[in-house]
């Protein structure tokens, strides 16, 4: 190929360069007549002449606009000119010619922007002329006016430098014309304009390259004249706001041409505002009303025959399991748009998605199902943190009202998979969360912990919504709630992992520790069965937190308050877990946890709120009988106040007191009765010698313990310092006790016995006695005046008071105490087990479902179940299952026991229930019941049907030694908990109830259970379990009558209610439960019979509760 010859020495350069046009200032002339004006403006090929004419006209107009000049003839000249220039007779022909001209200009060759742009500018002026006066006729000529508009929108500025605002591109002019048209056209016309797909598409295709001012005008114009135009129908808006428009606008989040110093919001901010409005405002045409957690296409109110629901449970609802891989949605535009956003890299995009989720909750599950590529695998990177933040925001979103944004719950519960996808979205699976919790980076585990905290809170809300009393299909909703909890446990890390994560947090990371302890506390509150299974011993954590707080290393009071939050969480956990050892000092600690807690209270920086901790101290003090269990007694307050005021007046004196006080408190807690008796001795002594009548006088047992220990102080190290401190402390303490309502004469007597042991050489203390009129200055105190010694007839008054207390209504009572039937028949169990592995049989409940069928009403089912149990036993025996021998033995003995007894009726429920619960024990060789169950099994091949297995073994075991040591007490309460669970499942029919009240060597089982609840060391969860058993008994035919006439249940409930301490929230709540239960007993018993039995004593009083 030959080289191209250049045309001359500088030909190449000359040909590429555009010829420079030199503009000289145009000439002009003054205008005196319309005729002259007409000549000047007539078309001319000669540019000099043309410019001369235009310049003259411009100066003429300038002068006309100048208000100061004398216009003379000018207005008339202009009017005459316009008259003459007007097209002759407005004929159509003329108009058509002009339209054709415009159309031709608009569709000129792409390169002729110098023709297209001015035409577009002229059209823009025309459409906005006089407030849109001629917009309507212009639109009628749309065939010409909008000619090639879409194409012209595509003629963009080309070049490296930014578009010059003085020389806008054809695209810019086209957009500005379009926006003016939107502004001035009437809604019908706008609707048609927006239905032109090519125009709408061209409008945003190149928006990323547009100059900033144009982007702003575009967004603002579309916002005011489309999005927020109330007269424009939704469909018209939807025409504009399709997925691709939204996606292109979202590209502006990465807009690069923004001037850095520009005032006002950035383009990204404007785009964000635009998208927020477009996607979340239902009038904008994008957002459609969905039905929350119920996907499109399903009918949440479908009528399903009750029998079918009873038989099959949730399986009767065909769509219940249908949405695990795909969720059909109504908001398809949004659903297609969302995957284009990058929530992990931008706060705004994350905010946009969550705002959309909030108004269209149906999208949450579907979003994560269709965007599986992004995982939550922990990695210390900005992207992971961004994703974690996005997920946190998603989990924090509220659950839609009634799950469906309606005004009442539908008949059927929402698909469980969708609810759980909203609580723990798919990327938050067990593996990823566990690895995050265990990650060596503390920040990663912190983020995971926080997500779990909000998730479990949301789970709580969802479960409560499932348990709402207004549901008509209660059993289906209850089953769905159980499934939900199960699903949650499968996605969430186990509690052991949470505990380990908590354990690994450095001591000083207060924020992290608070979050981790909050998570554990929530587990106990929301999923108690799971939490209690972990056998978590909270004591070491509590001790660490206490010692950190008591060492006072936290300078910032805010840090102290935050640390207190952690302590509160731990205290709450201690309240839920059985067998917290309050009065056992570990090796690491010099004081018991209780005294440490007291010390934290006393040493707390001035003003820190200690209400929750005071409540715990009081609760424990009452429970351990350190102080009288009287509603009006302010509990430990006198001790606390005396210590606090001592700390203020003489800070050094408090330190030597702690070991002494700890000793006294521990002794008193371990043997409270001893000190009550000692007090009686003092009272009697006073009556005998001084003739004082102190019968019924009240003082705290702890004061007696102090008196007893005083003589030993002097012998100890630092004894003198302690005695000196006690000399300051004791008068104050006793004085405050008197102010708080204890008996002053008795306290004076005790003080006089104390004085000889105190350092009181000058007799000052003895002379002053117990000071009078001391005020509580540091602690708010319930108003009490010093009481006179009470006469013993106070009991009747107490009863009346108890009866007027509020009782829980029937519905709340049912929610609190009703437990689903653990032996509910599921006939499908007969076939389901066959395909399962032995592990699944034992661990996933297939075996227990089979056992439960032995209590079926139908003989054929029972027999079938028996055969299948024998088959499973054989299968297990041949397997590699670790505990196969014991499980086989259990099943064989059960079968042997059942064989001859199921022809005429069901197996007694307690027997079946025992088998089910024993099976769970055998699965876990570490269980404290393991030995007991095995001993029972080896005792003989057949069980006695009219005895409840293992009841004696568990109940007759000595209670834990009060001086708590090791885990013995915890094990004891675990066994009680197991026993109550098995008894509860075993009480279903009147025949079962007979077994519960049958006379036995050590008394009827029910009587022994009632006695159990009187154990002051037993915690609320176990006490509630006893009440559940009673509630179950009232559900059995004749149960309430038996409870009343055989067990005096009304008096028992009265006594329990009177014993509830009402200072804290828990006590009042329990009292209400007891009251509600009493009413239920009365309402469900044979009232005539009970009236006769009680000789009329029961009736009015109970029913008036």
């Amino acid at each position: 190929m030959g080289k191209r010859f250049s045309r001359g020495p500088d030909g190449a350069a000359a040909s590429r360069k555009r010829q420079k046009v030199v503009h000289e200032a145009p000439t002009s002339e003054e205008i005196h007549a319309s005729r002259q004006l007409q000549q000047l403006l007539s078309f001319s090929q000669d540019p000099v002449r043309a410019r001369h004419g235009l310049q003259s006209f411009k100066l003429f107009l300038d002068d006309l606009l100048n208000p100061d000049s004398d216009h003379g003839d000018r207005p008339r000249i202009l009017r005459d000119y316009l008259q003459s220039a007007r097209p002759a007779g407005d004929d159509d022909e003329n108009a058509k010619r002009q339209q054709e001209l415009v159309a031709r200009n608009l569709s000129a060759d792409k390169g002729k922007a110098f023709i297209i742009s001015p035409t577009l500018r002229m059209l823009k002026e025309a459409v906005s002329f006089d407030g849109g006066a001629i917009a309507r006729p212009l639109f009628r000529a749309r065939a010409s006016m909008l000619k090639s508009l879409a194409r012209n929108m595509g003629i963009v500025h080309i070049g490296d430098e930014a578009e010059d605002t003085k020389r806008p591109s054809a695209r810019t002019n086209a957009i500005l014309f379009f926006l003016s048209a939107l502004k001035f056209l009437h809604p019908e016309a706008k609707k048609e304009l927006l239905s032109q797909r090519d125009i709408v598409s061209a409008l945003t295709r190149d928006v990323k390259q547009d100059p900033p001012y144009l982007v702003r005008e575009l967004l603002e114009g579309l916002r005011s004249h489309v999005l927020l135009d109330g007269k424009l129908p939704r469909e018209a808006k939807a025409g504009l706001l399709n997925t691709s428009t939204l996606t292109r606008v979202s590209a502006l989040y990465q807009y690069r041409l923004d001037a850095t110093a520009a005032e006002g919001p950035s383009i990204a901010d404007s785009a964000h505002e635009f998208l927020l409005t477009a996607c979340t405002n239902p009038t904008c045409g994008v957002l459609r009303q969905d039905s929350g957690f119920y996907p499109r296409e399903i009918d949440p109110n479908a009528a399903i025959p009750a029998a079918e629901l009873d038989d099959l449970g949730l399986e009767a609802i065909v769509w219940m399991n249908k949405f695990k891989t795909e969720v059909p949605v109504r908001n398809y535009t949004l659903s297609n748009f969302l995957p284009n956003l990058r929530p992990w890299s931008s706060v705004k995009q994350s905010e946009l998605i969550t705002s959309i989720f909030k108004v269209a909750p149906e999208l949450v599950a579907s979003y994560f199902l269709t965007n599986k590529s992004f995982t939550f695998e922990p990695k210390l990177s900005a992207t992971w943190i961004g994703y974690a933040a996005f997920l946190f925001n998603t989990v924090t979103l509220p659950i839609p009202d009634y799950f469906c944004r309606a005004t009442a719950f539908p008949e059927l519960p929402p698909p469980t998979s969708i609810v759980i996808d909203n609580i723990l979205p798919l990327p938050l699976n067990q593996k990823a969360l566990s690895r995050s919790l265990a990650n060596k980076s503390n920040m990663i585990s912190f983020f995971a912990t926080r997500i779990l905290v909000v998730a479990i809170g949301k789970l709580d809300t969802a479960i409560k919504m499932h348990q709402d009393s207004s549901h008509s299909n209660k059993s289906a909703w209850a089953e769905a709630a159980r499934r939900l909890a199960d699903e949650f446990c499968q996605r969430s890390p186990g509690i052991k992992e949470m505990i380990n994560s908590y354990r690994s947090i450095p001591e000083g990371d207060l924020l992290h520790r608070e979050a981790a302890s909050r998570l554990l506390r929530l587990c106990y509150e929301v999923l108690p069965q799971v939490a209690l299974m972990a056998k978590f011993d909270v004591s070491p954590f509590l001790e660490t937190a206490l010692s950190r707080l008591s060492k006072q290393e936290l300078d910032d009071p805010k840090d102290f308050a935050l640390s207190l939050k952690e302590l509160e969480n731990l205290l709450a956990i201690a309240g839920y877990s059985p067998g917290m050892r309050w009065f056992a000092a570990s090796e690491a600690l010099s004081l018991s946890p209780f005294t440490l807690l007291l010390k934290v209270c006393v040493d707390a920086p001035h003003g820190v709120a200690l209400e929750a901790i005071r409540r715990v101290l009081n609760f424990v003090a009452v429970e351990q009988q350190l102080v009288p269990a009287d509603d009006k007694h302010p509990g430990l307050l006198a001790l606390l106040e005396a210590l606090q005021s001592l700390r203020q007046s003489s800070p050094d004196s408090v330190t030597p007191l702690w070991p002494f006080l700890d000793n006294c408190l521990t002794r008193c807690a371990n043997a409270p009765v001893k000190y009550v008796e000692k007090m009686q001795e003092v009272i009697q002594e006073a009556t005998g010698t001084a003739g004082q009548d102190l019968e019924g006088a009240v003082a705290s047992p702890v004061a007696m313990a102090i008196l007893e220990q005083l003589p030993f102080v002097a012998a100890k190290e630092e004894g003198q310092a302690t005695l000196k401190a006690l000399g300051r402390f004791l008068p104050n303490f006793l004085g405050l006790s008197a102010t708080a309502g204890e008996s002053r004469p008795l306290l004076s007597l005790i003080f006089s016995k104390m004085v000889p042991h105190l350092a009181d050489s000058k007799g000052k203390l003895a002379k002053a006695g117990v000071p009078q009129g001391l005020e509580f200055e540091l602690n708010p105190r319930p108003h009490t005046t010093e009481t006179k010694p009470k006469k013993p007839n106070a009991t009747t008054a107490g009863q009346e008071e108890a009866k007027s207390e509020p009782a829980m209504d029937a519905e709340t009572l049912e929610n609190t105490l009703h437990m689903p039937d653990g032996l509910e028949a599921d006939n499908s169990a007969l076939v389901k087990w066959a395909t399962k592995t032995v592990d699944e049989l034992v661990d996933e409940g297939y075996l227990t479902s089979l056992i439960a069928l032995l209590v079926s009403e139908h003989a054929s089912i029972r027999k079938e179940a028996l055969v299948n149990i024998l088959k499973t036993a054989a299968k297990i025996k041949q397997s590699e299952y670790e505990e196969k021998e014991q499980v086989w033995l259990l099943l064989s003995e059960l079968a042997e026991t059942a064989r001859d007894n199921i022809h005429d009726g069901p197996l007694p429920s307690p027997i079946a229930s025992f088998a089910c619960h024993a099976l769970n024990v055998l699965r876990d060789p570490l269980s404290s019941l393991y030995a007991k169950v095995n001993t029972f099994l080896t005792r003989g091949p057949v069980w006695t049907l009219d005895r409840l297995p293992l009841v004696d073994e568990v109940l007759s075991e000595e209670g834990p030694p009060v001086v708590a040591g090791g885990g013995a007490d915890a094990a004891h309460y675990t066994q009680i908990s197991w026993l109550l669970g098995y008894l509860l499942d075993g009480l279903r029919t009147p025949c079962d109830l007979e077994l519960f009240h049958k006379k036995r060597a050590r008394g009827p089982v029910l009587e022994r259970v009632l006695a159990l609840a009187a154990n002051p060391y037993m915690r609320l969860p176990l006490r509630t379990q006893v009440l559940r058993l009673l509630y179950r008994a009232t559900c059995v035919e004749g149960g309430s009558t038996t409870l009343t006439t055989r067990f005096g249940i009304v008096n028992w409930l009265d006594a329990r209610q009177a014993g509830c301490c009402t200072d804290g929230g828990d006590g009042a709540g329990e009292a209400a439960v007891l009251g509600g239960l009493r009413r239920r007993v009365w309402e469900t018993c044979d009232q005539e019979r009970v009236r006769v039995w009680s000789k009329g004593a029961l009736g009015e009083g109970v029913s008036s509760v």
Partner: protein
Amino acid sequence: MASSQKPDQEIAAEFTSYYLQRATTEFAEDLDKVRAADDFKNDALQMLVSALQQGTALFSPEEQRRIVTDAARPESKP
């Protein structure tokens, strides 16, 4: 006491600032590592701050008030 109470917004702002200050102290080492990561650019800093402070949502307004103000307020007398 009511008259000296700060408005909720002020409390929330104070608490957020305390929360952030605590978080940056506790996770200083990790934060340095994130800042050195390849993908730390553009909006990442804003993202990081927003991610850290969203944890304030775990604390109810009362809890926030307690932590921020109780320490500075003399306890009221009965």
